[in-house]
């Protein structure tokens, strides 16, 4: 298990800006910390070797402290601000539980843990709907309704306490009835209690306050809707979750305006009890989307304290950096990008570091949770120390490919937590044989190659692109995308298109890019949301929930949204396999005069039959042209990969019907393309994630690196 873990408050800083690092050290051991620049994050001894460089005057000895992650979402409503002390009350809410058989599923609570005062309304396993009452001086009572509760069914539940008589009641009413299933009823009890003794506690929905300040316990899994609280006959609050979808605010529509706050990012913009299948966009009928889906394993922000900060020198080159923290037993790297100062550094090339896609895969558990994972890559999954730690610490949260404990898809991902697979030296089960690289570590092969060829390159993150738009790309003669830039917000997409159409040159160095639409959290940087719509991956969006809560935009594949990647970079996702990679064979277009500059110095017919990622330049995920999806008609198809294993299967969105032999007869291969654009720019695309792993072969002298350099040099000097 790991004993050092950390994250930073930012993922991109400009020279002169400060970044704060938050670290947990098991047993509070002191550790060394240093800022390093990452050039090659691949430890494969068959490659050029791992390479990082210390940044001068940026190392410290830090007194460690242990910091925990407290997962689980809830809503906290400061009812005490507008009401007298809790006495007689009536609380009702609509509830759609997903794990009702699990103990301690708190629906709502107004509870002071220290004194045992207040109430907790919960599902308690076989005991069913339960109400616990305490007067804060040792008096307590608990009612159990004992009726079954069906998962993923709506109920109205109610808790009532009368301080005059001491009588308490709980009520559960199923909104859908089944003959022979008795899941509606009520029970009452004379508790003997003459008060509940709560003065300062907040109303907490989907959890209860635990001992320590700001800590919660007994998290609920499922949806809540329309909670209403009365003290006696006085309405204290009526919370309308259909208001403020996309925000962290829970709005009170009652007279006291007791607005609450969501903790750890539960899902909004989800169907409530009234969703009737006539609307599919929460913006058109918010009343049908008046539910919030809470999960005991939601993790939006680890909320750790800062352990050290660093201000990047104003003359620091743009690049990929990390804070390295280490003890004798363990180490961790907290990666971040130093972007260029505003207006660019003078470099003519920018690499877009696909941080949104890193977030999409952050802390993924597919090989651990999904029986099919081994079939998908046709070898036995390999787990390293980071994977084992993730497996033991689900509180670190999952990726956009994982499901919550209750089986619902994880729709948001945040970088405000340690991300154990966004690390140099990390090997991924998705990365094929050899180096087994996926995303960040694979992308460093691009940085390594550029450095080996003395080509200056600025690094820009997806977050920068989203925040600043095309302006951030305008200083560059050429913009490079990374190995797997899969997740794009609309603003990122717009920016890349505007750059291309304004005369920019794009080197698309990976595959399966520009694939899923995402939305960034409207106010908090570093959190993304995906609605997978009708094409699933790991999970599929429930009916009626394909519109992002964060943006109000329909989600899904950009292809389904009318912007297929083929229309942007000429090629788009066609299929994948995760065992071994293959090679390209040149096509007639590669011998045309227009393509001569690309193949200058390359006499080979076969391109990339070598490499650290699966042993070839064409592998993992593959893109090809498709005129019907917008590949420009002037596109030169330079080379096509071949001889892929039977594990390379077509992507699901292309499967309109099943038939025998489908895998053998589907056209799953990569195409390398080039096309000129009307704005004066051009696009080169490799069509393969594995390409970067072949650049360093034979001391960086090979046909993959030659083609890459040929295109790069032409693009860098195109507008001179």
């Amino acid at each position, binding site marked *: 298990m790991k004993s050092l873990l950390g994250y930073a408050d930012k993922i991109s800083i400009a020279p002169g800006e400060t970044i704060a690092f938050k670290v947990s050290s098991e047993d509070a051991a002191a550790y060394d910390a240093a800022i390093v620049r990452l050039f090659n994050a691949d430890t494969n001894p068959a490659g050029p070797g791992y390479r990082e460089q210390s940044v001068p005057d940026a190392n410290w000895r830090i007194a460690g402290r242990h910091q925990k992650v407290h997962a689980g979402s809830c809503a906290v409503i400061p009812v005490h601000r507008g009401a007298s002390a809790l006495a007689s009350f009536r609380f009702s809410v609509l509830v759609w539980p997903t794990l009702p058989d699990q103990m301690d599923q708190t629906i709502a609570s107004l509870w002071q843990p220290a004194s045992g005062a207040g109430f907790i309304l919960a599902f308690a396993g076989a005991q069913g709907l339960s109400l616990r009452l305490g007067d804060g001086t040792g008096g307590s009572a608990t009612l159990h309704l004992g009726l079954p509760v069906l998962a993923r069914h709506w109920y109205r539940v109610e808790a009532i306490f009368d301080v005059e008589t001491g009588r308490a009641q709980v009520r559960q009413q199923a909104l859908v009835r089944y003959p022979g299933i008795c899941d509606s009823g009520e029970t009452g009890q004379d508790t003997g209690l003459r008060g509940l003794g709560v003065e300062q506690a907040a109303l907490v929905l989907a959890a209860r306050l635990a001992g320590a300040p700001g800590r919660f316990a007994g998290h609920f899994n499922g949806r809540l809707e329309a909670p209403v609280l009365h003290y006696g006959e006085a309405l204290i609050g009526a919370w309308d979750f259909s208001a403020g979808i996309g925000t962290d605010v829970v709005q009170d529509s009652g007279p006291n305006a007791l607005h609450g706050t969501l903790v750890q990012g539960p899902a909004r913009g989800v169907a409530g009890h009234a969703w009737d299948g006539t609307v599919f966009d929460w913006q058109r009928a918010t009343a049908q989307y008046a539910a919030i889906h809470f999960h005991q394993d939601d993790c939006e922000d680890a909320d750790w304290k800062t352990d050290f900060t660093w201000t990047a020198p104003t003359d620091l080159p743009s690049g990929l950096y990390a804070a390295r923290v280490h003890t004798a037993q363990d180490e961790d790297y907290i990666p971040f990008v130093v972007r260029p100062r505003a207006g660019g550094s003078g470099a003519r090339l920018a690499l877009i570091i696909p941080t949104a896609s890193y977030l999409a895969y952050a802390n993924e558990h597919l090989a651990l949770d999904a029986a099919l994972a081994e079939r998908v890559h046709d070898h*036995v999954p*390999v787990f390293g120390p980071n994977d084992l730690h993730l497996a033991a610490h689900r509180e670190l949260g999952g990726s956009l490919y994982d499901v919550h404990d209750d089986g619902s898809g994880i729709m948001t991902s945040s970088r405000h937590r340690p991300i154990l697979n966004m690390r140099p030296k990390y090997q991924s089960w998705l990365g094929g044989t050899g180096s087994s690289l996926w995303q960040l570590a694979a992308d460093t092969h691009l940085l390594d190659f550029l450095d080996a060829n003395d080509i200056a390159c600025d690094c820009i993150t997806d977050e920068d692109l989203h925040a600043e738009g095309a302006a951030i790309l305008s200083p560059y003669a050429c913009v490079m995308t990374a190995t797997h830039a899969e997740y794009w917000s609309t603003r990122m997409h717009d920016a890349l298109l505007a750059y291309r159409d304004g005369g920019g040159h794009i080197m698309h160095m990976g595959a399966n890019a520009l694939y899923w639409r995402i939305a960034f959290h409207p106010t908090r940087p570093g959190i993304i949301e995906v609605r997978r719509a009708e094409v699933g991956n790991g999970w599929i969006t429930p009916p009626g929930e394909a519109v992002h809560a964060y943006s109000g935009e329909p989600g899904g594949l950009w292809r389904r949204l009318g912007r297929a990647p083929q229309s942007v970079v000429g090629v788009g996702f066609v299929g994948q396999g995760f065992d071994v990679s293959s090679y390209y064979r040149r096509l007639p277009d590669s011998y045309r005069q227009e393509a001569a500059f690309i193949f200058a110095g390359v006499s080979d017919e076969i391109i990339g039959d070598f490499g650290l990622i699966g042993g070839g330049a064409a592998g993992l995920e593959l893109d090809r042209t498709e005129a019907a999806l917008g590949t420009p008609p002037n596109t030169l198809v330079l080379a096509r990969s071949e001889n892929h294993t039977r594990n390379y299967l077509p992507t699901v969105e292309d499967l309109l019907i099943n038939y025998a032999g489908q895998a053998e007869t589907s056209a799953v291969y990569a195409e390398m393309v080039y096309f000129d654009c009307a704005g004066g720019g051009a696009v080169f695309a490799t069509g393969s994630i594995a390409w970067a792993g072949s650049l360093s072969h034979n001391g960086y002298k090979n046909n993959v690196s030659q083609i890459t350099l040929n295109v790069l040099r032409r693009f860098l000097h195109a507008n001179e």
Partner: protein
Amino acid sequence: MRNRATRIDPTRLDPVREFWVRPIGHHSAALEAVLNILRSGPVAGKYCLICLKPHAQWAIGRISGVRGVPPARIDGPVFTTIEDAERHVFRLRWEAETGYALPHDEALWSEGGAE
């Protein structure tokens, strides 16, 4: 589903020999059919590899199938290639699936693989 006992013919070793030559990569339809069965068990108890030293050492583990309980290493050798670890998992699964032990490694190698 067909009778479990007959899903793999334990007397047909040519796919096994092919696997011994190339555990990862191009596989014939016959080997693929075997692997589809051997690789398709439920998550709980499924074999996995635990990397002890990057690019150098691997051990066999089993996935718990319980969220929060990490894969645990089982007794057995430490392998210095992923391919050897793959062959060992294949052997364990074959024997569990068919009820028949595979010939020792040397025998599987010496008779060559189906290329």
